[in-house]
C-alpha cells in the first residue's frame, strides 16, 4: 500500500526542484567567492549583482512553484546554472560587465515567461505568425542599413548606451514563424512561403557576413522543413542548392573563403589567423580535470575571451569536468526535446521544440568545435554562458519553445484536456 502511494508520488513530482536549486545555489556561491575576493576590497557592484542574481533565481522558482504550479523545472535549473557560470566568468574578467550581463539575464527570463505564455494558445501563435515574419525581415533590413561593422561582421545596431544584435532576435522569430503552421501541414507547397522567408533571412545574414549565424539558420531551416513536409526529396534538393550556392559565393567572392583560411592550419598560423584557437587549445589543456581556479587562467587576456572563447576559459579555470557538464546539459536538453516532440499535443509544439534544440546544438557545436579547430571559427556565442545581451535573451527564448511543448507547463490546460 505504502509502496503504491510512493510510486504515485514519484510520478507526480518527478523532479526534486528544491534540492537541485540548493545545489545550484551552493555551486554559484562557491564559484562567486574567488571573484569577490579577487580584488583587495570587494567590488560592491559585483557583490550586489551576484546577490541579485541568486535572489531572482529563488524568487522565480518559488513563484513558479506556488503561483503557476510548475512541477517540472529542469530546464530552468539548467538555464540558471549556465547563466550563473557565465555571469561569474564575465565578472571575473571585467567587473564592469557584470551588471550588463545581469540585466540581460533578467530580460531573458522575462522573455522566457512571456513566450511560454504566448505559446499556450495555438490560435494566438497562428495569428501572430505573419506580423512576426514581417517584423523579423524588417529588423534585418534595418540592420543592413544601420549596422556597424564589428569584428568583420555587420550585425550590430548601436543604440547609445547599449548595442543590440538583431540576428539573435530574428532567431526567435525564425522558429516561431516556422512552427506556426496549422492547416497547411505536410505539403511541399506549403513550404514555399517559409522558404522565401528563410532565404531572406539567410541572405541578409550573408550580406552582413555573419556566416556562423547564417549556418545556424540554415540548419534550423532544414529541420523545420523536414518536420513540416516529411518530404526528404524536397529537402535534399534545397540542401544541394544551398551547397552549390555557397560554393559559388566562395568562388566569386574569395574574401569569404579567406576568413576561414586558418581552419585546420591553426598551428601554422599560430600568431595570425589561428591565434585564438591555438591559445584555447593549449590553455584549456593546462586546466586539467579540475581547472586552475577561477581568475587564475591566462586565456582571459586574449581578445573575445568572454564571448567566442568562453568555453576555453571554462576548461582552463573551471576544469574539463565543468566544461563537459555544460555540453552534456545542452545535449540532453536536445534529447528531451526530441522525446517530448513525439508526445506534444500539437505539431506546432513539436516543431518549435525540435527546431529550438537544433538551433542550440548547432550553435554549441559551432562554438565549441570552432575554438578547438574541429570546425571553422565563426564567432558564434555559447548559449547562456557567453557575454552578450541579445544572445542571452535568445537562449532563454529557445528554452521557452522546449518548455511550452510539455503540457505540464500549463496545468489548467492539462486539466481541461483530461475532462
Amino acid at each position, binding site marked *: 500500500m505504502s509502496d503504491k502511494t510512493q510510486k504515485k508520488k514519484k510520478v507526480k513530482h518527478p523532479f526534486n526542484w528544491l534540492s537541485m536549486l540548493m545545489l545550484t545555489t551552493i*555551486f554559484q556561491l562557491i564559484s562567486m567567492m574567488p571573484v569577490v575576493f579577487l580584488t583587495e576590497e570587494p567590488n560592491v557592484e559585483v557583490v550586489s549583482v551576484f546577490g541579485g542574481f541568486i535572489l531572482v533565481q529563488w524568487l522565480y522558482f518559488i513563484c513558479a512553484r506556488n503561483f503557476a504550479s510548475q512541477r517540472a523545472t529542469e530546464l530552468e535549473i539548467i538555464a540558471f546554472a549556465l547563466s550563473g557560470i557565465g555571469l561569474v566568468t564575465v565578472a571575473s574578467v571585467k567587473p564592469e560587465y557584470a551588471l550588463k550581463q545581469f540585466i540581460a539575464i533578467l530580460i531573458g527570463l522575462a522573455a522566457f515567461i512571456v513566450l511560454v505564455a504566448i505559446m499556450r494558445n495555438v490560435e494566438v501563435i497562428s495569428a501572430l505568425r505573419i506580423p512576426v515574419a514581417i517584423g523579423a525581415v524588417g529588423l534585418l533590413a534595418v540592420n543592413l542599413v544601420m549596422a556597424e561593422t564589428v569584428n568583420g561582421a555587420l550585425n550590430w545596431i548601436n543604440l547609445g548606451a547599449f548595442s543590440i544584435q538583431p540576428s539573435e532576435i530574428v532567431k526567435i522569430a525564425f522558429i516561431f514563424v516556422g512552427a506556426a503552421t496549422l492547416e497547411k501541414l505536410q505539403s511541399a507547397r506549403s513550404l514555399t512561403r517559409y522558404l522565401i522567408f528563410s532565404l531572406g533571412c539567410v541572405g541578409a545574414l550573408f550580406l552582413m557576413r555573419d556566416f556562423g549565424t547564417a549556418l545556424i539558420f540554415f540548419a534550423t531551416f532544414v529541420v523545420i522543413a523536414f518536420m513540416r513536409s516529411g518530404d526528404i526529396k524536397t529537402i535534399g534538393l534545397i540542401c544541394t542548392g544551398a551547397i552549390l550556392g555557397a560554393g559559388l559565393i566562395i568562388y566569386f567572392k574569395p574574401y569569404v573563403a579567406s576568413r576561414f583560411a586558418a581552419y585546420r592550419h591553426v598551428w601554422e598560423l599560430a600568431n595570425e589567423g589561428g591565434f585564438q584557437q591555438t591559445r584555447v587549445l593549449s590553455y584549456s589543456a593546462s586546466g586539467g580535470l579540475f581547472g586552475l581556479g577561477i581568475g587564475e587562467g591566462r586565456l582571459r587576456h586574449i581578445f573575445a575571451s568572454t564571448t567566442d572563447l568562453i568555453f576555453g576559459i571554462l576548461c582552463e579555470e573551471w576544469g574539463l569536468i565543468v566544461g563537459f557538464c555544460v555540453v552534456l546539459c545542452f545535449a540532453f536538453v536536445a534529447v528531451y526535446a526530441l522525446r517530448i516532440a513525439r508526445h506534444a499535443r500539437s*505539431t506546432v509544439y513539436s516543431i518549435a521544440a525540435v527546431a529550438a534544440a537544433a538551433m542550440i546544438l548547432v550553435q554549441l557545436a559551432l562554438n565549441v568545435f570552432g575554438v578547438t579547430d574541429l570546425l571553422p571559427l565563426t564567432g558564434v556565442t555559447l548559449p547562456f554562458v557567453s557575454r552578450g545581451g541579445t544572445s542571452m535573451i535568445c537562449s532563454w527564448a529557445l528554452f521557452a519553445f522546449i518548455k511550452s511543448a510539455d503540457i505540464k507547463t500549463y496545468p489548467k490546460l492539462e486539466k481541461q484536456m483530461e475532462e
Partner: protein
Amino acid sequence: MDINELYISAVSLTRYLLAGLAVLITGGCVVSLVTRRFGSRVGSYLVEFKTKKRIPLTRWENSIGRSPTCDVILNVATVSRFHAVISKRRTGWVVADTGSRTGVYVNGEQIGKPVVLKHGDKVSFGTSVFEFFDVDVDDAEREAEKERRRQAKINARTVARADNRGASFLPAIIDEAGDKAYVIGCDSCTIGRSPDCDIRLKYHSLSSEHARVSKIGNGWYIEDLGSTNGTKVNARFVTNGRRKLRDGDIIGLGGVIFVFDEHYKIKKN
C-alpha cells in the same frame, strides 16, 4: 600557516567542490529529463469500415498517407504519400486534403476546403473508407447504450414472466422497450426490412436483408448478411462468420437494440 597559504588551499578545494557539484546538478537534471514519462490522450478514432479496425488519433494534427513518416500509414495504392490531415481545432475535428491525387471524401462528397467532421461521419481516402469516432461523443454514447441495455434486459424479463401457463418455449428477439417480441420460428430465420424476410422489421436503419439467425446443433448463431449499418452482439460488430448467441445477449441491428431470449414463453394456441 599564513593567510596566503590558507587562501591557496581554499581555492584548490573549491576547484574540486565545483566539479563535484557540477556533476551532481547535471546528473540530477539529465536523469529527470531522460526518465520523464509523457502520457498521450486519444482524441478520436478512425474505424476502418470493412475490418472495423480502430486507429487511434492521439495528436492535434494527424497526417494520413502512404509515407512511413505519416502518423496514420495507409499502405494502399490509391492513397497518396501525403494524403490528408485530420486536426483538432476550436470548431472540432477538421479533415483537410493535402494535395492528394484521389481526393478525400466525407459522406460521399469530395472536399475542397477543410471540412469539420462529425461523430459517425464516413471519411474516405482513395478507396479506403473509415468511420470517424470522436472519443468525447463516443464515450457519452457508450454510456447511454449501456444504460439502454440495462433497461432492455429488465423489460425483457418482465415480458417473459408475464404469463407462464400453457406455454411452449421458443427463441425470440425482444425489442428494447420490451413490448414486442419476434419469435424465431424456423431453424434459419432472416431478419430485415424486406417482406421476404422471416422476421420483418420496419426500421429505416436496417438493410432489406440484414441478418440471419440460425440453429446449428443445439446453439443459436447470428450472422450479418452484408448490411449497411452492421450487426452487433453485446456492442461488438459481427464481422465475418457467425456469432453464437446466448440467453440475454444484446443484439444491435443497425442501431436498433433487441434482447435475445432463448426460452421465450409463448401461449399455446
